[in-house]
């Protein structure tokens, strides 16, 4: 993962957020991905989201595995801690970090190879544990760093650059997450920042694992005619079945509230997600409805996007484990060691 520092040029007129940071302060090293890579657009959407939410960078941890997608954690929030772990194992490392320090904001960036092949088990179990984190899958249907093999998300019939057609059925992370009981499931497109940013912001405020599958075309190995993960195919087949706006807590909710077409979900921190009605009968708080719509779109060869499902009532890892509110790393040793008097009492039970 090569990293080249960006020149620290500051435009004096750049807008500052509540912490006094400009959007540039949320950027990272220069990207080393191919020009036009979808992942760089996802990075830009992430930067925008962090800036808009005024996230303190050093209270965020960027977690990743191995692959093109996993490289991108170096390209945003250079003032944050980052952990580029091993292939497919980002979820477990994040689970451990979250168990130890629940107060940090965890941003996991993964890909379709990292999460749907080698790391499928880890993704599944992180969902089941509902580890509080934003989990972005930059999904391009192909192994980029090893030059173009199909990944587990490649659609049947989608062709490789050499013209070979994929024959194995794809794993759709959205359907998988819905099945596994995920409490926040969304899909975006790297080419649609306006849709992606509110989704990412809502995901960052979610009290649990927020899975965001982002179709992010690989310009080098999977952007040709015959690919179902190309810019062209995605633009032509993208169906926004749920359109969400995210309103952080500190923003006052204004006139739009009265809009009859809106339904509102309140996040655990008091922020709100407002859904505009774009699809008849779609209910983003119903797992069954979400599943059925995504399946229906799939059968029509459409790519269902939007914040597809949300359940703010679910318990996260810590609620499930019943841990104290203070991060475990901040507990003083005196609260952890029972001491010799207790030990001696205990020893009597071993006689």
């Amino acid at each position, binding site marked *: 993962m090569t990293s080249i520092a960006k020149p620290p040029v500051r435009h004096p007129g750049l807008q500052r957020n509540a912490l006094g940071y400009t959007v540039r302060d949320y950027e990272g090293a220069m990207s080393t991905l191919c020009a036009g890579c979808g992942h760089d657009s996802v990075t830009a959407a992430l930067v925008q989201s962090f800036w808009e939410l005024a996230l303190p960078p050093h209270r965020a941890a960027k977690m990743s595995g191995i692959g093109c997608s996993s490289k991108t954690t170096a390209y945003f929030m250079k003032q944050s*801690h980052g952990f580029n772990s091993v292939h497919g194992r980002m979820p*477990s490392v994040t689970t451990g970090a979250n168990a130890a320090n629940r107060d940090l904001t965890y941003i996991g960036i993964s890909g379709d190879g990292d999460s749907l092949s080698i790391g499928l088990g880890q993704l599944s179990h992180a969902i089941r544990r509902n580890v509080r984190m934003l989990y972005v899958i930059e999904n391009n249907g192909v192994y980029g760093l090893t030059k173009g093999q199909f990944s587990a998300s490649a659609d049947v019939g989608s062709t490789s650059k050499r013209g070979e057609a994929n024959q194995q059925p794809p794993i759709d992370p959205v359907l998988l997450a819905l099945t596994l009981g995920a409490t926040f499931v969304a899909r975006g497109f790297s080419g649609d920042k306006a849709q992606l940013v509110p989704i990412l912001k809502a995901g960052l405020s979610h009290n649990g694992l927020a899975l965001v599958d982002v179709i992010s075309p690989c310009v080098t190995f999977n952007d040709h005619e015959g690919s179902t993960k190309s810019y062209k195919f995605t633009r032509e087949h993208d169906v926004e079945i749920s359109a969400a706006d995210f309103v952080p807590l500190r923003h006052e909710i204004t006139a739009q509230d009265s809009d009859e077409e809106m339904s509102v979900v309140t996040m655990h921190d008091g922020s709100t997600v407002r859904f505009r009605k774009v699809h008849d009968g779609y209910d983003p708080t119903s797992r069954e409805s979400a599943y059925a719509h995504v399946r229906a779109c799939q059968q029509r060869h459409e790519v269902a996007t939007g914040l597809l499902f949300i359940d703010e009532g679910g318990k996260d890892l810590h609620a499930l484990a019943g841990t104290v509110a203070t991060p475990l790393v901040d507990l003083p040793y005196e609260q952890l060691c029972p001491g*010799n008097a207790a030990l001696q009492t205990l*020893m009597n039970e071993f006689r």
Partner: protein
Amino acid sequence: MTERMSERKSARMTTSMTTSMTAPLNQRVSGVNDFAFKMATVNGTGSASANSLLMQAIFRMGIPVTGKNIFPSNIQGLPTVYEIRVSKDGYTGRPQHMDLVVALNSSTYAKDVASVRPGGCLLYDSSWPLEPELVREGITILGIPFGRMCVDAFQGDRNRTLLRNIVYAGALAALLDIDMDIVGQMLLEKFAKKPKLLDANKTAIRLGYDYAKTHLHCPLPFHAQRMDATRDSIIIDGNTAAALGAVFAGATVGAWYPITPSTSLMEAFKEFCEQYRVDPETGLARYCIIQAEDELAAAGITIGAGWAGARAFTNTSGPGISLMQEFIGLAYYTEIPAVFYDVQRTGPATGMPTRTQQSDLMSLAYASHGDTKHIILFPCDPADCFQASVTAFDLAERFQTPVFVASDLDIGMNDWMCKRLQWDDSYRPDRGKVLNAEQLAGVKKFSRYLDVDGDGIAARSLPGVHPNGAYFVRGSGHDKHGAYTEESDAYREVVDRLARKFATAATVVPAPEFHRQPDAHVAIVSLGSCHAAVLESVDRLRDQGIIADYMRIRAFPFCESVKAFIASHSAVFVVEQNRDAQLRSMLSIETGLPRDSMIAVLDYGGMPLTANVVVSAVAHHLTQVPA
């Protein structure tokens, strides 16, 4: 052979060779407070509680005692054996000979009868005629109709099966002169809240006791007699003690995947945490235990938590260690503290999950691809597991690296008599070089991997503490600042420092334990659960005129004194429980001493080591090789 050896020894040994040897080699003479017996039963029938009742009662009589549970990898229906050794001299190694065998499993009769020492006793269930298999010359056969007595006294199949164990415990109490007041008291403690069960158990114990008293000659020539040698001791297994150590060391995150024989470690940790780690006001937990989907995830969770600043651990066995390899290398190279308990079992592959071995030594020492080396602690008994736990967390944080506690099934799951555990309340965790917010505030540009003090250990920062401490952890090639690199020199600088760090660790890890004798002419090197049997073998060798110095290795990397000890003896026996003499290889690799200069004594059949194995091997070698 004994005579021949004495002759040869006396020729080359000096004054100590005066003991006349009346008993043949390896033949122990049993007697009061010096005997062993075993119960051969079917697993899942409730014999465990009767067996521990007997063991604990002897312990409470003040007599040193140890138990070995030789159990199958199965829940119900297969043969299981519980061995109890009573030793006034305090020997805790596995006994070689059984003075008394209780044969209650017809499928293992032949084996059980064969395991009685000549002149010993066999106790069988005489509800049925004596099977021809059970007949053997030279032993005493005792019959008690356990089955019939239970049918007459109790209702229901399950009750009868379960209480049969208590009946035989009662009979053994009579035969071995175990204090019935103590047995009664223990039943009272155990069933204090279940009066119905208490009554049934009291009846059962009395049934067996009275029958034996009336029909058999009690007590047997070898039996128990009150002593005062267990006042400061406890009976505990290694997994429980290790878990307790983790609680006292301040571990807060435990991740694991169930695997025999390490499972009970996390179960004990959970139990102790529920007792000691619950916020009294909120009832919330000051710990987080995660049962992972596999050992890979367990390792990842442990490393993630260690990176975030918690004391975190995982417990596993050989197959789990194999699965964790990639993560172990990541933690080594990115320098993240993590504690791994490896409760070793018999490999390779699935091997024998309920049998013991020390066969993960090399796979721990050099775990993962690339150049890697790891700190390992080798506790020798449960009390040592408690201490090793605490040391492991201190070393992991001090050296920012994975630390292994290499226990095994024998230590981890068997009941050992140990000194009461003690805790020094002035202890504070060694967190190592961790920069706090104040220190980070003064740092202009934080570089993660700088060796400022020359000990190979760089200062680390924890996520979330201060903006200046932020850095990017990467398993890919990095330079001393933590930045990605593909430059040879920058890469080498970091891995060379890691080697220096390891050299520093060799000066800090627990030094070996030496047991020296004047005029020793041979040396024994061993580790882990072999310790008890080796200590006993040293005494027995001395009885035969073979004077041995003994070094118990307590940690890897080896410190200087390990090499010095080996180099200063001409005959060095390395005793270990694996086929390939892994410890001997490691000693050779790390000290540069020739592998063949050390004699391998190997015992790898899956059973806990007996002193006989060592005594025979050493004595045999000395008869083969002229001094």
